[in-house]
Structure formats: structure tokens, C-alpha cells
């Protein structure tokens, strides 16, 4: 009963869209993004500890955090929250510090579907297609093992 993730990453365009529905009210989904002690519980790959240096999910706020892997390797990310409207919308910058100065702009909408359900839609725009592919791949390096384990299951099915 897991809701599917829809990803649109058009070839040749430095753009990714990701859409997911949740069986939870829009206020709860928004809080999971806004409150630092909730954010650290789900953002980032499995098995990685997340430490927030800063998390101010408000208009003109910002963030910096690290994902620390099982072997102690660190992946730092930072950005600013340009606009945050409660239970509705946020737009932020996103920089993986392993690729400094390559900054994506990410928007997300929190859409109330009624009946305690929410659609989360995120879209990221990168400076170039290479930046999109390279940065996303690097930013995800830490998550590859979990991804592979899941893929194992898919292939074995």
C-alpha cells in the first residue's frame, strides 16, 4: 500500500520533477518539513545520520546539514529558503558542498487532497544538464547501497 513516486527528468533539460502522495493531512506533511526534529528522521538515505547545523524553514531562512555514513564519510548540503508559505509552498536553493557553486533552485507544493491526504510536488532546476546528472548522482552516492538492496528485491521478484 505504498504510494508510488513519479519522477519526470526530461532528457536534455536541467530539470527534475518528483511527485508523491501521502496518507496524511497537509499540516502534518508540512510540519515534517518545518520542524528540525522531524526533518532529521526522514530526510536523506537510510542508515545515514543527519545532523542539522541550521534549519530555519521560513521565508528568508536557510539550512545547512550533514549526512554521515556508516563509515563516517560526510556529505554536507546548504541553501536558503527564499519563500515558505505554511501548508502550501516553499522555494529554496540547494547546494551539495562536494560540488561547490553549483546551485539548484527547488520548489515544492503541499496540496491538500481532502480526506487527510496530501500531494507533495517538488521540482528542481539545475544550471545545466551535466550539473543535474552529476550533482544528483554525487549527492546520492551515500544512498546507493540501500538503493541497490532494494533493486535486489526488484530483480528477484
Amino acid at each position: 500500500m505504498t504510494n508510488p513516486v513519479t519522477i519526470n527528468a526530461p532528457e536534455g533539460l536541467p530539470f527534475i520533477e518528483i511527485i508523491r502522495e501521502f496518507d496524511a493531512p497537509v499540516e502534518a506533511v508540512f510540519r515534517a518539513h518545518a520542524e528540525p526534529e522531524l526533518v532529521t528522521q526522514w530526510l536523506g538515505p537510510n542508515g545515514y545520520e543527519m545532523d542539522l547545523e541550521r534549519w530555519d524553514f521560513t521565508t528568508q531562512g536557510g539550512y545547512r546539514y550533514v549526512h554521515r555514513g556508516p563509515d563516517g564519510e560526510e556529505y554536507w548540503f546548504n541553501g536558503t529558503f527564499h519563500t515558505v508559505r505554511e501548508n502550501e509552498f516553499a522555494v529554496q536553493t540547494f547546494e551539495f558542498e562536494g560540488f561547490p557553486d553549483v546551485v539548484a533552485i527547488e520548489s515544492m507544493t503541499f496540496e491538500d487532497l481532502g480526506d487527510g491526504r496530501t500531494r507533495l510536488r517538488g521540482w528542481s532546476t539545475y544550471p545545466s544538464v551535466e550539473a543535474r546528472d552529476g550533482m544528483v548522482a554525487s549527492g546520492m552516492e551515500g544512498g546507493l547501497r540501500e538503493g541497490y538492496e532494494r533493486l535486489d528485491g526488484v530483480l528477484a521478484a
Partner: protein
Amino acid sequence: MLFDPSADDRLDRAFMALADPVRRRIIARLSRGPATVNELAEPFEITKQAVSKHIQVLEHAGLVTRTRDAQRRPVHLDAAQLEALTAWIDRYRLIHEQQYRTLDALLTGRGTDAAASDTDAPQGGAAQEATEP
């Protein structure tokens, strides 16, 4: 890990092996479980020898292995090799699916300490909503 040259060679061999439609169908069949050469040859209108050749190419590329199981010698898919070929977009999807499942658990209170948020926890969220600079 991403720029290991020997890994590059392996990728090249794997991509060349997969450039053939018969070999791709063999891989697809093996993704559902090991099979003998006879079983693999069945759907194709080519000789068993030709299918054996294709399997050798896949074996050389490291995509499949064969075990000694009496005379059957079933062919197995080496999933780890195939995974190395999947594009970043698939990994991106896998990571986000996993991450959103964690968020699901958190939202439904199946997550660890998040269950507390159901019960109007006094230390909680409402206070910090607007004021903190």
C-alpha cells in the same frame, strides 16, 4: 568508485553484451530466476548452440554465472553487475521511495518518537511556529 578504470572496462563489456536483443531477452528471463540452457533456448528460433554462444558472451561480461548443479548447470543472473548499469535516475527514484516510506511511517506515527506528535505533546511544535527569529 565512480571513476575506477577497470570498472569502466566491465561496463563496456556489459553494454556490448546487452546490445543484442536475444541477450537482453535472456537477461529478462533470468531476472525471474535461474534457468538451464534448454529452458533459455525454448522461446527462440535459433539453435541451442547459438544460445550457448550468447550465454558465453553474457558470462564474459560478468552479467551471468553458471553453477555446477549436476548436469543442469543453470545460468544465474549476477544482479550486482546489472545494477552497476542502472542510470542515476533509477537510483534517484529508489532513494526517494525509501525516504518517502520513512516519512510515511513518521506521519502515521509508526516512526520512532514521532508518535508523540499525535497526543498534543506539550514540549511541541505550536510554540515555535511564528515567533522565533
